[in-house]
């Protein structure tokens, strides 16, 4: 069985090389048979990798502990869900997942575009398969998931595996890596189309129209993956943090930021044919940051809690990145003429310039995170002295940048394309500014002595005001014209231009998330050694230990506390924080108890037992104000993203009269 898996990967590797060569040669020499064969190879690779993945998952489920990977990441006692999740629980498997997701995407792209872009598609295929080839080298020759333990040569047969890292045995963690990978890998596709159109010098922006939805969906996956990771950290790690500026967290944030910048600046190219070079640079940067992120996660070059597996694959990544970046830079420089801007800036006060600033700030925050992530490595190389770059650094640098970005989120959409006058700006900003200032004054009056937090609340109100005004004014105009009520008019408004109003809803989601982040300025915490009957308090809550329990099952031992929560003498809830020790890995984990409310979360962690002979339970208690708004904001953001994907209700009939006589390639549906 392992042989079949290994052969499938090897054959997929050979076919990926073949596909690159046949596509390029076929395109150069005008041999359609060759390019078709190259596209067929994409399907074949998908079938082969699906086989390999299925075999690995099968081995994990039945517990074939002859395989090193299975022995390391699975055990008999694990629930079936986590046995499947062990597919991406380790290095080899997660690289296989990467390759499989890429092959699925590639097959999808080749299939949906089978009748389109005759001159560009071979190059798109070649780029997809070149990336595929790189990952197949890693899986096939360096980190083979089908490695068999050499039973007999000093290794006795393995009766049971180590089990998946217990920290990862949590449902959001089971789907966090694949979601993130669907994001990471998804950005390969727009990149391939961008480079393909650059190589063949396609007229117009066909690559943007074709990959627009793709980019938005991928961006949605990336956002979901990041938030799932944050939600996992919050609920599992036991200290209520959702973001720790860990190198691997940063690695997932970097391409998300550049992709966000791309989604904005690409509008300039669609609307006016400007910023073509910049968009090329952004999509390439996003792609390479995705590869870089995988590299950071997998090479362990920067110490990280996520470095579950470390191996010498780093140098392959460095080589791939170096060659890829050099080739991309050469291509862009060589084709500057093709990427020339078609239009000019009419005025400095215009939507165009607001996009310039938005891009600047997004890129600056991306750079600050990247810089903080790699600075310890640079510093050690230059000065020979180890230093730490921890949360305080990121917070100090990124909080002001983030707040400025929030400000721009409010300002940008109110400025008209091409030109705007101070007069209309004054009118547009009057009420949002008043609301923002009022909230700031209210916050200070309410006792906020935290500068950034106060500013953040004010800005959140300001941006909410601008978004509300946009919806209100638009709906009112439509309601007036069609005599609908305001709600129906708002739906109609959104339906007419789903991308814009969906985008506003995404902005609203970001605002809600900022409210949640800001709440962190008012966190409270405490740690207490307690026995049954003890009482303590945190914030407005009084806590009383009602009971302490323990027990075990075949997967883990556990113990927990039953804590009665009361406010003002009245009992409102009971929480049961629990600690587990997994038997296979002998690793303790916390099953924290959280009372989630919109205003604040009460968060209890059973942290352990004192070993001073008194055997008291150690309970860590926290109050996290507003943290729920991060997750609420995320749902709003996803809703907005989905709305962006709905085709807008626009009658495009004038197109038909013009296109009779020849076949239209792609009807733009902006």
């Amino acid at each position, binding site marked *: 069985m392992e042989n079949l898996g290994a052969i499938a990967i090897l054959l997929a590797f050979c076919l990926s090389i073949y596909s690159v060569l046949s596509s390029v040669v076929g395109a150069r020499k005008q041999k359609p048979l060759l390019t078709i064969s190259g596209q067929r190879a994409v399907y074949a690779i998908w079938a082969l990798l699906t086989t390999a993945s299925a075999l690995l998952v099968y081995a994990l489920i039945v517990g074939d502990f002859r395989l090193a990977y299975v022995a390391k990441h699975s055990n008999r006692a694990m629930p079936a869900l986590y046995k499947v999740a062990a597919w991406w629980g380790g290095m080899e498997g997660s690289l296989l997942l990467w390759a499989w997701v890429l092959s699925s995407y590639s097959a999808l792209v080749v299939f949906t575009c089978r009748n389109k872009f005759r001159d560009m598609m071979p190059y798109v295929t070649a780029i997809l398969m070149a990336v595929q080839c790189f990952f197949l080298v890693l899986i096939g020759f360096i980190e083979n998931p089908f490695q068999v333990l050499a039973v007999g040569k000093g290794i006795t047969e393995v009766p049971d595996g180590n089990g998946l890292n217990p920290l990862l045995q949590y449902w959001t963690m089971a789907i966090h890596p694949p979601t993130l990978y669907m994001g990471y890998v998804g950005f390969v596709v727009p990149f391939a189309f961008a480079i393909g159109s650059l190589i063949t010098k396609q007229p117009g922006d066909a690559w943007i129209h074709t990959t627009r939805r793709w980019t938005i969906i991928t961006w949605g996956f990336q956002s979901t993956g990041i938030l799932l990771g944050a939600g996992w950290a919050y609920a599992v790690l036991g200290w209520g943090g959702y973001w720790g500026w860990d190198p691997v967290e940063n690695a997932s944030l970097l391409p998300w930021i550049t992709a966000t910048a791309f989604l904005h600046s690409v509008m300039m190219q669609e609307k006016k044919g400007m910023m073509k070079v910049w968009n090329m640079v952004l999509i390439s940067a996003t792609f390479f940051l995705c590869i870089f992120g995988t590299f950071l996660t997998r090479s362990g070059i920067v110490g990280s809690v996520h470095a579950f597996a470390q191996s010498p694959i780093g140098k392959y990544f460095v080589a791939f990145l170096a060659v890829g970046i050099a080739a991309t830079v050469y291509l862009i420089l060589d084709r500057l003429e093709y990427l020339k801007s078609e239009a*000019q800036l009419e005025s*400095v006060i215009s939507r165009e310039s607001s996009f310039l600033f938005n891009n*600047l700030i997004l*890129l600056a925050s991306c750079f600050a995170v990247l810089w903080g992530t790699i600075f310890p490595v640079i510093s050690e190389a230059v000065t020979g002295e180890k230093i*730490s770059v921890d*949360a305080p*650094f990121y917070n100090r640098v990124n909080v002001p*940048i983030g707040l400025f970005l929030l400000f721009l989120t409010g300002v940008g959409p109110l400025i008209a394309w091409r030109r705007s006058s101070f007069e209309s700006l004054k009118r547009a900003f009057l009420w949002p500014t008043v609301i923002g200032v009022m909230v700031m004054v209210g916050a200070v009056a309410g006792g906020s002595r935290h500068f950034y937090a106060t500013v953040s609340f004010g800005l959140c109100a300001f941006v909410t005001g601008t978004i509300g005004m946009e919806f209100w004014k638009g709906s009112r105009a439509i309601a007036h014209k069609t005599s609908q009520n305001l709600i129906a008019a708002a739906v109609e408004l959104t339906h007419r231009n789903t991308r814009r109003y969906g985008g506003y809803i995404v902005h609203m989601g970001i605002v809600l998330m900022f409210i949640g982040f800001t709440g962190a300025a008012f966190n409270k915490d405490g740690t207490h050694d307690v026995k*049954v009957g003890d009482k303590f308090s945190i914030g407005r809550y009084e806590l009383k230990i009602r009971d302490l329990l323990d027990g075990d099952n075949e997967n883990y031992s556990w113990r927990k506390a039953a804590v009665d929560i009361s406010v003002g003498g009245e009992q409102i809830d009971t929480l049961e924080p629990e600690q587990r020790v997994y038997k296979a890995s002998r690793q303790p984990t916390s099953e924290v108890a959280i009372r989630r409310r919109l205003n604040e979360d009460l968060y209890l962690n059973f942290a352990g037992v004192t070993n001073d002979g008194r055997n008291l339970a150690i309970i860590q208690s926290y109050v996290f104000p507003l943290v729920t708004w991060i997750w609420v904001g995320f749902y709003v953001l996803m809703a907005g993203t989905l709305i962006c994907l709905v085709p807008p209700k626009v009658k495009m009939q004038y197109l038909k009269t013009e296109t009779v006589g020849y076949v239209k390639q792609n009807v733009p549906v902006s």
Partner: protein
Amino acid sequence: MSQYPSSSVAMRSFRPFLLILLAGLCLAQQSSDMLTPAIRRVGDRLACLCGSCKNTVATCQMLGCHYSAPARERIAKLQSQGMGDDAIIEDFIKREGKRALAAPPAEGFHLLSWAMPFISIAIGLWVIYLFVKRYQRPASAAAPIDRAALDRYKDEIDKDLAKLE
């Protein structure tokens, strides 16, 4: 959690076998709440060096953390000896090197870590300035409008546009 066999005996102490299992995993677990505001003030400037942790000595919540817990005690001890914040920080740097600091010190080469993000913004602003200068249409020269062409197609455009609304 009720599906697991649970002992609902109210315990004064935990079962011994669990304690043995846990003893090796959790070193020196004391909740001793060492986080007075004074310790927090100093601890916020010191990195927790317990491995992959990105927190400070003040914010690391890992119980029995083999770095931050002793570090907090040390801060308390030095403070009781009357040492100032900076002196305590100096003491930590002497013992651990510069990596004891939570963020790079603003001196020498490390100044770059703080400066670069803002230098990048400055460079970005400059690039935007160049971009605007290069692409902005001079205010005096109005957009070149080809009146003849416009008139020729005006009807068609108006008709199509009316259809769109």
